[in-house]
């Protein structure tokens, strides 16, 4: 097949890798982890659709409970003789390492496809670098890297061919996000190409080596000092042969496709004097830069490392032009304390062992997807010109601490002439990214142009801004970096203009397309000063369209993505207009066709109507704006927020120097309050006359933007005129005032508060005590009211009853304004937890949604109270969270024990009375805890005057004498799957920890993959045909211990029950487990109805509420209390409100019906069991 006859497809790196993996394997074990999850999703989807591999059979795809599990399953499948593979990244790869040693030690052919990613150190990062694969380089796996999407497809196949021949397992890696998520036009290898590369004799040899009782062998022995060493050396010939095998495969591949790779590929001037050595997507950037510099007469080049392990010194040396004087080796990882990063060390060793003398420097770049640009490459080449270039440098950051960083000219550009560079600013969930992916496909597949798309998201799950970077051009694109000189900028949300300086990336004469509610004649005056300035200075061509008007007209609701896409094509002229429209429609049919014909028709209508609403703006010659882009944080923010956080919020985090960073990952609390995002178009407004002060709205607010206080009348002095206050409706606080206040700039507009409000107007029932109103007109007024509200003292907790929802509203939340999704079902529980115990909490948080909205920079939602106390929060990993939290408990308990010993020892010095009071303190309630705090304060004062070692010792741990509440928080992916072993152990330990499982029934954070919590019949990723098995009853499993407090709660089902469960769990002196029903956008319905769905879940018996309290047995009572009524709603009336169920019912009704029937049986059976348990006689 000639190269030109193969289909051109526009796909991302993950799809390219998964495509080859699925074609060439029989067993695929998967587990979700960013940024590799999509590879597993593709493989699972293809197998579910019945797509076959090159041998005509559908590969078996199985989701495991962790990456460790996936690696174990692959090891077993390989030993069973199946061609097997897996996909992973980062921590996932680390979990596979033990098995990888085994797989390599047994000389077993396989390819693991890795979207290389940073490893959590001072902080987690989901972004791309080589830290993970470098951590696996001693496993004995060969390592073959790809630098672009085409290379991913090609190299995946070369690796597969080479592993079979060499028997050495391969890591095939490519850069997470930059390559795994870059959409690019590539030539698709066909089944015959793949067959031509895979030698069937080798496949048969692999099978022949498999375990079989028909020709049994023993593998996996234990060896003693006498022979282990020799056994380890026995594999050497295989590693020695591998480089040649890989090169042979590359040569064979070249014969088939015409694309010729080498173990080390040199590109550049034949007489180059300065050369950069690099692997991964950075090699593409260096390639582009070298091309530009060579054209300008510079003698530079690049060596792209493809086969990194086994490292062939011979091939490497041969790749270096003889003319080279100096080399710079770039590593995309950091190995603290080493003599250099891995590639650098290998290069130095290779040169030394070969007796080749060159000047070599090494440096780090691009950690965690830090931008790596041609300007930086030029900076490295320039450094090589110096007589004493800096070694062990960094490039791309400003290191003002150890001064490792290289200076470079950021204005240097090597962008290829004739390339269209377009940037689109959209709102997460508005479909902009999807439409842009289609645009790349259209241009890639309908024209001869090369096309590239890359998509950047901010770290919020609500009101997120997405930036799409699209390049198109007649020449191959090596630009693996973000666009910073755009020829086209589109803003899909008018409100972004005052938040973001998006025109800074527009080049002179660029086109600016704005989705604007204001027409061409009136829009100018509505633009911030900086926007006007740049339009004038850069002579931008300026177009507006009222996309929302077109969407409304054509039945598209608020969906503007295809409308804006049509405008882009019309203005940019990439395709003739008619052709473009036909192509857009084709893409619409292909993308949305499965969703139903009416969806397709409405999109068509929107496309047809778009252009008549597109207008060019006649730009006035002068600036008229009376306002400007808002500062990222208010002037009142503290210093760190001003200096550091504000930069990150403004999108300038790249410019922060090393010295601005905390050295150990410690960040200040309470910083979300400064990030006024103003993302809600409508916010709730309080009707104080109607309000019954029940506090339900405060309880359910996911972002803690509705607060209540009861306070003395005198506090109202100086209140803004519009500040609302009414007499408090509390028996014991009648003389006081009550205010319910909304934080107008922090609200996300979810409307859960309105939905839950029970107080309806007698004259118009739709009017409640809290109602949504437009935000802009009341923003300033309510912001002032909010500030005043904050100045009112918090309500005295000692007069409140924490078991009452009405009283809980008056307790200060120590978790506020998180970046969680609008209407999040998890955060109300997290907030409640901090209201009840925040001042004495330590939180171990499993990786997942709760760690992202809990701890993803720029700002942190956990905060402290007026005394400076608040939840101490940390995220260790995904899999170890229960153990991590238990460790905290062990530390607290040990310190408490030691502190008590010291108090006893020092009793005579500190006073016997105080010592006894401390030792015998009852801390079972808040009053007791507060009293103990007072005692510890006195103790400290006394200790300050005693200069002995024991006194100093006691002083340093005296806080441990006050009760601490340890909480272990995570989602169902953690608790039911990856962390279950640890969780089980911790529950069995008897230690006083509290576990909160925020159960969304899928891996929400990585995009809704099925967990063992996913219910039967629900559609999820990895269960696209509806989950066939029922949900694991984690609660009942914990009940089985008999020593664990267990509660299953749903705030929307019974809020009082929820509060009680938290209090009882915390009070129980042993392990407690709370499983909290958390509605989630992955369920596919309007989150405003989240609490209604919770109620339906309870009423249908799907989610029976119960509490199991081992303490009750001691009181002669049944420990198992069933707290919800017998099911009074058919399961279907609950589940068929959610897309995760209806999707199956509408696309495969028979199967949906079958699963529903089984699921209904599950509910009935479980209810009977629970009822039985709740009626058990107490002996």
């Amino acid at each position, binding site marked *: 097949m000639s190269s030109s006859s193969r289909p051109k497809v526009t796909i991302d790196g993950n799809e390219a890798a998964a495509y080859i993996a699925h074609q060439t394997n029989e067993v695929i074990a998967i587990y979700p982890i960013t940024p590799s999850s999509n590879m597993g999703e593709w493989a699972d*989807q293809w197998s579910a659709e019945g797509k076959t591999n090159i041998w005509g059979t559908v590969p078996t795809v199985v989701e495991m409970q962790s990456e460790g599990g996936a690696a174990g399953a692959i090891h077993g499948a390989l030993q069973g003789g199946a061609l097997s593979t897996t996909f992973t990244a980062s921590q996932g790869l680390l979990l596979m390492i033990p098995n990888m040693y085994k797989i390599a030690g047994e000389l077993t052919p396989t390819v693991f496809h890795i979207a290389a990613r940073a490893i959590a150190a001072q902080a987690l990062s989901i972004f791309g670098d080589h830290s993970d694969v470098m951590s696996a380089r001693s496993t004995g796996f060969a390592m073959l890297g790809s630098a672009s999407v085409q290379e991913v497809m090609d190299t995946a196949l070369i690796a597969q061919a080479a592993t079979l021949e060499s028997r050495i397992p391969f890591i095939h890696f490519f850069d997470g996000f930059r390559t795994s998520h870059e959409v690019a036009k590539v030539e698709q290898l066909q089944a015959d190409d793949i067959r031509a590369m895979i030698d069937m004799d080798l496949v048969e040899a692999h099978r022949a080596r498999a375990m079989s009782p028909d020709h049994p062998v023993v593998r996996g022995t234990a060896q003693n000092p006498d022979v282990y060493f020799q056994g380890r050396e026995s594999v050497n010939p295989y590693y020695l042969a591998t480089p040649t095998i890989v090169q042979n495969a590359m040569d064979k591949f070249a014969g088939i496709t015409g694309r010729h790779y080498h173990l080390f590929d040199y590109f550049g001037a034949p007489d180059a004097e300065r050369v950069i050595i690099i692997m991964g997507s950075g090699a593409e950037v260096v390639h582009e830069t070298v091309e530009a510099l060579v054209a300008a007469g510079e003698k530079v080049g690049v060596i792209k490392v493809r086969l990194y392990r086994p490292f062939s010194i011979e091939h490497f040396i041969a790749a270096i032009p003889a003319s080279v004087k100096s080399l710079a080796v770039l590593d995309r990882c950091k190995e603290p304390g080493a003599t250099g990063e891995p590639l650098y060390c290998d290069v130095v060793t290779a040169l030394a062992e070969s007796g080749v003398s060159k000047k070599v420097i090494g440096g780090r770049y691009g950690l965690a997807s830090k931008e790596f640009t041609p300007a930086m490459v030029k900076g490295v080449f320039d450094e090589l010109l110096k007589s004493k270039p800096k070694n062990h440098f960094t490039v791309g950051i400003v290191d003002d601490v150890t001064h490792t960083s290289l200076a470079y000219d950021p204005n240097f550009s090597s962008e290829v002439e004739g390339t269209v560079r377009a940037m689109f600013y959209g709102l997460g*969930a508005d479909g902009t990214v999807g439409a842009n992916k289609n645009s790349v496909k259209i241009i890639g597949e309908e024209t001869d142009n090369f096309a590239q798309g890359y998509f950047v998201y901010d770290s919020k799950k609500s009101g997120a801004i997405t930036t799409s970077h699209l390049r198109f051009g007649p020449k191959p694109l090596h630009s693996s970096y973000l666009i910073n000189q755009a020829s086209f900028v589109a803003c899909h949300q008018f409100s972004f203009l005052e938040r973001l300086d998006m025109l800074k990336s527009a080049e002179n004469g660029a086109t600016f397309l704005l989705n604007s509610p204001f027409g061409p004649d009136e829009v100018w005056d509505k633009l911030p000063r900086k926007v006007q300035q740049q339009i004038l200075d850069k002579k931008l061509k300026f177009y507006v369209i009222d996309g929302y008007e077109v969407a409304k007209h054509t039945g598209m609701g608020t969906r503007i993505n295809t409308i804006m896409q049509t405008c882009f094509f019309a203005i940019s002229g990439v395709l003739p207009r008619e052709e473009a429209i036909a192509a857009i429609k084709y893409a619409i049919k292909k993308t949305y066709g*499965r969703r*139903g014909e009416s969806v397709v028709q409405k999109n068509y209508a929107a496309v047809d109507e778009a252009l008549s609403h597109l207008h060019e703006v006649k730009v006035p010659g002068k600036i008229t704006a009376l306002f400007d882009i808002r500062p990222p944080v208010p002037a009142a923010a503290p210093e760190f927020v001003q200096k550091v956080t504000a930069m990150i919020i403004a999108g300038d985090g790249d410019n922060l120097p090393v010295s601005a960073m905390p050295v150990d990952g410690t960040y200040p609390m309470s910083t979300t309050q400064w990030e006024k995002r103003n993302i809600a178009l409508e916010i709730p407004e309080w009707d104080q006359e109607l309000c019954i002060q029940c506090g339900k709205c405060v309880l359910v607010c996911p972002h803690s933007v509705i607060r209540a206080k009861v306070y003395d009348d005198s506090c109202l002095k100086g209140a803004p005129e519009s500040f609302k206050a009414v007499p408090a409706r509390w028996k014991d606080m009648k003389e006081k005032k009550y205010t319910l206040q909304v934080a107008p700039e922090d609200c996300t507009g979810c409307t859960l508060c309105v939905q839950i409000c029970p107080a309806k107007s007698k004259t118009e029932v739709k009017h409640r005590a809290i109602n949504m109103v437009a935000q802009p007109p009341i923003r300033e007024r309510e912001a002032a009211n909010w500030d005043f509200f904050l100045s009112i003292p918090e309500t005295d907790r000692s007069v409140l009853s924490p078991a009452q929802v009405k009283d809980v509203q008056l307790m200060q939340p120590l978790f506020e304004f998180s970046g969680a*999704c609008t209407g999040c079902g998890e955060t109300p529980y997290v907030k409640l937890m901090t209201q009840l115990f925040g001042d004495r909490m330590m939180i171990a948080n499993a990786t997942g949604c709760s760690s992202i909205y809990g701890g993803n920079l720029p700002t942190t939602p956990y905060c402290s109270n007026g005394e400076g106390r608040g939840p101490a929060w940390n995220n260790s990993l995904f899999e170890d969270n229960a153990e991590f939290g238990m460790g905290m408990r062990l530390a607290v308990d040990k310190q408490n024990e030691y502190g008590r010993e010291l108090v006893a020892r020092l009793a005579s010095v500190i006073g016997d009375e105080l010592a006894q009071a401390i030792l015998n303190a009852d801390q079972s309630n808040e009053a007791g805890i507060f009293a103990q705090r007072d005692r510890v304060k006195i103790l400290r004062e006394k200790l300050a005057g005693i200069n002995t070692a024991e006194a100093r010792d006691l002083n340093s741990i005296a806080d441990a004498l006050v009760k601490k509440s340890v909480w272990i928080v995570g989602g169902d992916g953690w608790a039911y799957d990856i962390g279950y072993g640890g969780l089980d152990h911790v529950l069995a330990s008897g230690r006083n920890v509290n576990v909160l499982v925020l159960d969304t029934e899928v891996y929400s954070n990585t*995009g*809704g993959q099925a967990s063992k919590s996913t219910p039967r019949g629900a*559609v999820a990723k990895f269960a696209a045909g509806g989950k066939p098995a029922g949900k694991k009853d984690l609660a009942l499993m914990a009940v089985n211990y008999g020593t664990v407090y267990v509660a299953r709660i749903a705030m929307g089902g019974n809020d009082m029950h929820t509060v009680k469960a938290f209090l009882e769990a915390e009070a129980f002196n042993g392990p407690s487990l709370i499983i909290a029903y958390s509605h989630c956008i992955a369920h596919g319905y309007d989150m405003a109805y989240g609490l209604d769905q919770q109620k339906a879940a309870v009423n249908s018996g799907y989610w029976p509420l119960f509490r199991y309290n081992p303490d009750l047995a001691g009181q002669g009572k049944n420990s198992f209390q069933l707290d919800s009524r017998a099911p009074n709603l058919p399961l279907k009336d609950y589940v068929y409100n959610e897309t995760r169920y209806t999707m199956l019912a509408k*696309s495969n009704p028979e199967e949906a019906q079958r699963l529903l029937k089984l699921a209904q049986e599950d509910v009935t059976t479980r209810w009977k069991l629970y009822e039985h348990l709740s009626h058990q006689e107490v002996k």
Partner: protein
Amino acid sequence: MIDLSRTIDLSTTYLGLKLKNPLVASSSPMCADLGNVRRIEDAGAGAVVLHSLFEEQIELESEELDRFLTESAGLSPEATTHLPEPMHPVMGPEQYLKHISQCKQAVKIPIIASLNGTTPGGWVHYAKLMQQAGADALELNIYYIPVDPKVTAEQVEQQYVDLVRAIKGEVTIPVAVKLGPYFSSIGNMAKKLDAAGADGLVLFNRFYQPDYDLENMEVVPNLILSNSYELLLRLHWIAVIYGSVKADLALTGGVHHATDVIKSMMAGAKVAMMTSALLKRGISFLDTLATEMLVWMGEHEYDSIKQMQGSMSRNAVPQPKAFERANYMKVLGSYAMR
């Protein structure tokens, strides 16, 4: 004393279809189950009207799927989407059409498909698909609630007529139109529909009236099964319309006893349709009804259903005024005297 040697003919014709009796299971979710359709035949029904295929439902479901797939996508770099795309295209009318075919294979009684829509649009081609799937006839259920005060009665009526024409243009099988009672001039409306080509008129639809939940101050959907009182309105209008249109008349709503069926026939209906009675007393009640009809007819010496059809329509009774205003006054008067 019943003369057992006499044969009583319960058969009737409706929409040109020959039915063994006038008992028809009316359109309801009950008929979405193939087993129930079998039971309906076994219990002796003359025909069955399947549950409705709703125009809006198909569109709404697609749009909701589209909305939630879109809104849960593109939220974070980790989760480009939160739900998989459906493995198969979502069903438009396919499932309904399959049900028609399955019913046709399973039973011998005529299968009348029911199509529910309000405005002419692309969906009217579903009618043709229903015909292709084997439906013996079509019942067009125009469930239109004119809440917009700007819409005139004339516009509403024209919409009905247009719809019937559009559907008639799609199919060759007979089409019946199910109507609500809320027209200023039902007789005139019946004639217009008749002229538009309707082969049958089904009187009357029971609109599900929303109720108030006073505890929660919410408007809630409410389903109250019909009772025999509701029969009277239907009898009245069938008796009035009978003879003025070519279309067959069907009575639906309030049929609970054999005598209700007999009254329906006498008013002029070709068939009597029921759901509530079957929900209350089980599908096998159809058998009881047929038996009771035979008993009644035997006792009253009727030979056939056809004999009684229209026998007490407005023009067939000695005092047609009974169907007019005079009767109303009389009823009020009699009430006052109690």
